[in-house]
């Protein structure tokens, strides 16, 4: 019996010791960003950005550059990721990828087949931002230094998060959202875009962190609109916030004129309100064979700046401002929707999905050319704004000033 036990133990030891998948920590490097450009001879040109861990240790920081990049050309992204060690020393770990930059030329040609590889593979988590790069090569974007965030891709991700929370400018598109929208018949995908201002050559040098001004800076630049998997065009930054109104915009800051008088933008006087939360309901229905797209926006707001002399202690003033804000939101959101209808004719808002949920049978009839239905639809935006409070001062000094002038 004892011998048998021993035998079993030995056998178990044989089977269990083989840790095929063990990886030593100093044999790996963590990939933080990927950039995909069209290749010169081959289909893709992939740039991988991976961290240099020595630079992040507390005791001996500033050893060399915080990240390193590796550029290769090939016909499939997975292949390139697999043979990255043609130049890199360590095995790369992809589970912490933060940003995927796609050159707009790739998006225009619509060769997004590589997204399947990212979705299929287990290491890639569904939490990296997809960004379309508008100027320069996508390769340059993963190299731009920044003194606050050492890793370029982490900087971009944080920037996107803060932008979404502060102003509502980032649609928070991750891979699953993109693919969902791609295969959905009632929605087309959008992604955020970035543009590089400055000199990428200088911006990629460590010395650029020593100066207070930025040699090169990556900025968000509105939305990229996709017609199926082809890039159809862009929407401006303002339009992208209006787009977010129709989705789930959480917070933003809104500037709208408080009077009707004044013609040019410079002459007008403005009120600025902070929107701490907002809710949107989309409805799509048919009125006599005419599709109607309805967006209902319910919003709370508080005044943070006013340039007008209206008395902010009066209910009437609040009512008037609310009305102006509603009108402003309705106009600007409506403008963005009709612009999308006219210029691109693709439903990026998900009105089709709303119809799918609200009137399934009707949607089944029109699903194959929903985009045409979308383009000819009537747009109704109705906003309900409630201005609650006005910051730490009640009357503006401007009110006192104008009161004095009247006397």
């Amino acid at each position, binding site marked *: 019996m004892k011998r048998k036990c021993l035998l079993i133990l030995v056998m178990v030891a044989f089977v*269990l010791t083989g840790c095929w998948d063990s990886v030593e920590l100093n044999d790996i490097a963590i990939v933080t960003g990927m950039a995909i450009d069209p290749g010169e001879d081959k289909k893709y040109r992939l740039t991988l950005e991976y961290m240099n861990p020595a630079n992040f240790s507390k005791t001996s920081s500033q050893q060399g550059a915080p990240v390193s990049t590796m550029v290769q050309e090939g016909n499939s992204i997975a292949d390139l990721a697999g043979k990255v060690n043609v130049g890199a020393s360590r095995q790369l770990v992809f589970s912490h990828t933060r940003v995927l930059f796609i050159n707009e030329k790739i998006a225009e040609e619509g060769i997004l087949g590589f997204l399947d590889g990212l979705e299929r593979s287990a290491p890639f988590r569904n939490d990296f931002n997809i960004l379309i790069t508008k100027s320069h090569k996508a390769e340059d974007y993963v190299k731009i230094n920044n003194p606050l965030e050492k890793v370029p891709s982490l900087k971009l991700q944080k920037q996107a998060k803060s932008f979404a929370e502060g102003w509502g400018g980032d649609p928070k598109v991750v891979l699953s959202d993109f*693919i969902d929208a791609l295969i959905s018949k009632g929605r087309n995908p959008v992604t955020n875009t970035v543009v590089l201002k400055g000199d990428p050559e200088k911006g990629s040098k460590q010395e650029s962190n020593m100066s207070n001004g930025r040699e090169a800076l990556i900025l968000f630049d509105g939305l990229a609109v996709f017609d199926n998997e082809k890039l159809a065009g862009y929407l401006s930054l303002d339009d992208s916030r209006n787009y977010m109104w129709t989705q789930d915009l959480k917070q933003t800051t809104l500037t709208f004129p408080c009077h009707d008088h004044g013609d040019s933008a410079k002459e007008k006087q403005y009120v600025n309100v902070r929107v701490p939360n907002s809710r949107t309901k989309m409805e799509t229905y048919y009125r006599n064979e005419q599709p109607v797209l309805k967006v209902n926006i319910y919003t709370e707001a508080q005044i943070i700046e006013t340039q007008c002399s209206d008395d902010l202690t009066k209910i009437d003033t609040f009512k008037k401002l609310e009305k102006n804000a509603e009108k402003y939101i309705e106009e600007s959101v409506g403008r963005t929707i009709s612009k999308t209808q006219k210029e691109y004719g693709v439903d990026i808002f998900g009105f089709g999905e709303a119809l799918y*949920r609200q009137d*399934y049978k009707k949607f089944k009839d029109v699903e194959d050319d929903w985009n045409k239905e979308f383009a000819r639809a009537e747009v109704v935006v109705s906003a309900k704004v409630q201005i609650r409070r006005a910051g730490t001062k009640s009357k503006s000094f401007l009110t006192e000033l104008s009161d004095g002038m009247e006397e």
Partner: protein
Amino acid sequence: MNPKLVEKLSLWQLAILIFIFEVGSVAVVGVGQEAKQDAWIAIALATGIGIGLIAFYMFLLSKLPGKNLFEILVFCLGKWVGKFIGALYVLYFFYIASRVLRDFCELIITVIFKRTPIETIAITMMLVIVYMLYLGLEVLGRTSEVFIPYVFSFIIFIGLGTLFSGEMEFKNLQPILADGIGPIAKAIFPQLLTFPFGEMIAFMMIIPYLTKFKKAGKVSIAAVAISGLMIIYASVIQITTLGLNMWERSSFPLLSAAREISLLAFIERVDLIIVFIVMYGIIVKVSVFFYGGLKGIEVIINKPYRTLVFPLGMVISYFSIQISDTFAEHIEEGIMVIPMFLHLPFQLFIPALITPILIWKVKKQQRRTDNESV
């Protein structure tokens, strides 16, 4: 010399075993895809039918207390026919055990151990199960008692986690009953009916060994009901978090859903707890089927099953690999062949066939004993 073979289960252990057996694998692989966003309705209905099924099995068992499925077969159909059908059942149980083991190995290979050969995982996993069954059924019951709080709370946690991460969109469940009742019926029959609920047939080998057999019926019905609720819960998590398309395309939807969890930028990447749930679920499932088969052999060859555990365990790990060369084949078999040609006959038709014989024979026997006593 050997530790004594204990084959007694308490009611609580039975309930736990049923729960893990039902939830462990089903919650993760995702069922009811034919019903689209109404999968939860389909599962709810299937749970109702599942309760009916277990009640039916309990009815069969209660006719001959203390006898398991094989002994009932022998009792009804005579020694030779009964043993032959019993042998078919043994094959069925072993085959399903291999399939279930393969499911798990695929998950592990895909998700964590990318370079480890699948064969190693099959063998090591099987060694654990062999050891458990070698020590007896009660070990399985007690181990489950230890693990149930984790399995249960982890599944609950996944739901709360996705909810508070803001990833759940309940509008994904709309429109309800868009295409009417048709897809739901298709999802229930035969898929949902046989997997997971019909597989309860394996418990006909375990329930007779309970300490309190009389209450087993109520307990197992309650356990099935609770596991049904849990499966509904899991599928609602999957559909709301992933959306319909993604859910249909995922091999392991709950795993994909768990990946979306990101609480306070701190509790992230919790998908490994899903692997834990599946792992324990699979251990229980394979053990129950394997045990069922072993018990069957015990009835057929009239020898204790203990010496057979190791060799037959190896056979199961062998077939878990040989069963199909590719994952696609595995899935296709699972959809086209298994429910129609294996599950339905063994889970429904044979039990249904022997029911009248059983009732008739039991009555006859009773009459005889009555006559004798008079």
